[in-house]
């Protein structure tokens, strides 16, 4: 056996692994985009009308929330690189708060629909016609899956924040922070497409 222990760290491998994982997420949501595109094509009018029932204001605010949160997590990397631990923690904390705000908005948005008994499988929805069933089915499924990824992302960022606080991530060793940023940006990217496809096709 070698007597001198080898300290091997390959940050590029770590980042490459994260990018490859992002590709799987892109294809996962991609499958839903396939379904969306087909059913929108077949039910153009119904989708167009149903989109009117979504709250563009909340949707826009949520879009901007995620864009800002992407900015803050990107800036946290700059902060760490500049050895500014406190600023990095502030940026990450902001990112988490913004993510939570997104979820709260979603909760109220969904609540509105549930109050009207609009949800997958509901009798009210079935009565409204097949186009509406598909629109709302896709709406709940896609924004639901997206919200699940927000939660996963927040947990990931939370763990990273704790690691920075305990100096396990520093200006010499921050690939995990970069990777959490990449994941968060992906969540933002998906929403960048979900937003117009559900809220703006009026």
């Amino acid at each position: 056996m070698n007597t001198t222990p080898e300290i091997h760290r390959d940050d590029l491998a770590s980042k490459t692994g994260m990018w490859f994982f992002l590709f799987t997420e892109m294809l996962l949501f991609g499958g839903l985009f396939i379904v969306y595109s087909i059913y929108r094509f077949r039910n153009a009018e119904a989708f167009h009308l149903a989109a009117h029932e979504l709250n563009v204001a909340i949707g826009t605010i949520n879009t901007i929330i995620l864009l800002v949160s992407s900015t803050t997590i990107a800036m946290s990397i700059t902060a760490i690189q500049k050895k500014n631990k406190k600023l990095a923690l502030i940026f990450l904390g902001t990112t988490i708060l913004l993510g939570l705000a997104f979820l709260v908005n979603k909760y109220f948005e969904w609540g509105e629909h549930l109050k009207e008994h609009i949800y997958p499988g509901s009798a009210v929805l079935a009565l409204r016609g097949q186009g509406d069933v598909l629109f709302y089915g896709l709406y709940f499924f896609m924004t639901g899956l997206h919200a699940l990824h927000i939660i996963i992302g927040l947990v990931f960022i939370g763990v990273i924040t704790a690691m920075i606080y305990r100096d396990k991530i520093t200006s010499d060793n921050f690939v995990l922070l970069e990777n959490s940023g990449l994941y968060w940006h992906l969540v933002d990217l998906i929403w960048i497409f979900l937003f117009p496809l559900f809220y703006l096709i009026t």
Partner: protein
Amino acid sequence: MDLPLPPVLSHYLNLTIIMENEKNHIIPYRTFLYVLALLITLTLTSVAITQIYLGTLTVVLALVIAAVKSSFVLRIFMHLKFEQKMFSIAVIAVVLILCVVIIITFLDYLYR
């Protein structure tokens, strides 16, 4: 990345070189804020545009704007502009494959 290390050198190294090609590249805070401003502007533009009825052009425009926003997120926030070209090529390839799958699926639904 593919340079062969002389055996002598690898034998005595006990710290593997951290292979980061942009170890010291730091993006200024300002850059991120400019990009954010641009992204918000594009978002508000897309909301405004889609209030006007333009038929199928509405969807197309909304998606084009989304694509532009995405390219900024990918290139600046996700650092693709400063990484090895291979990453950008891979991202484009994945998107293209998805697009081709959608197009081929439409060959069924369009012509039924």
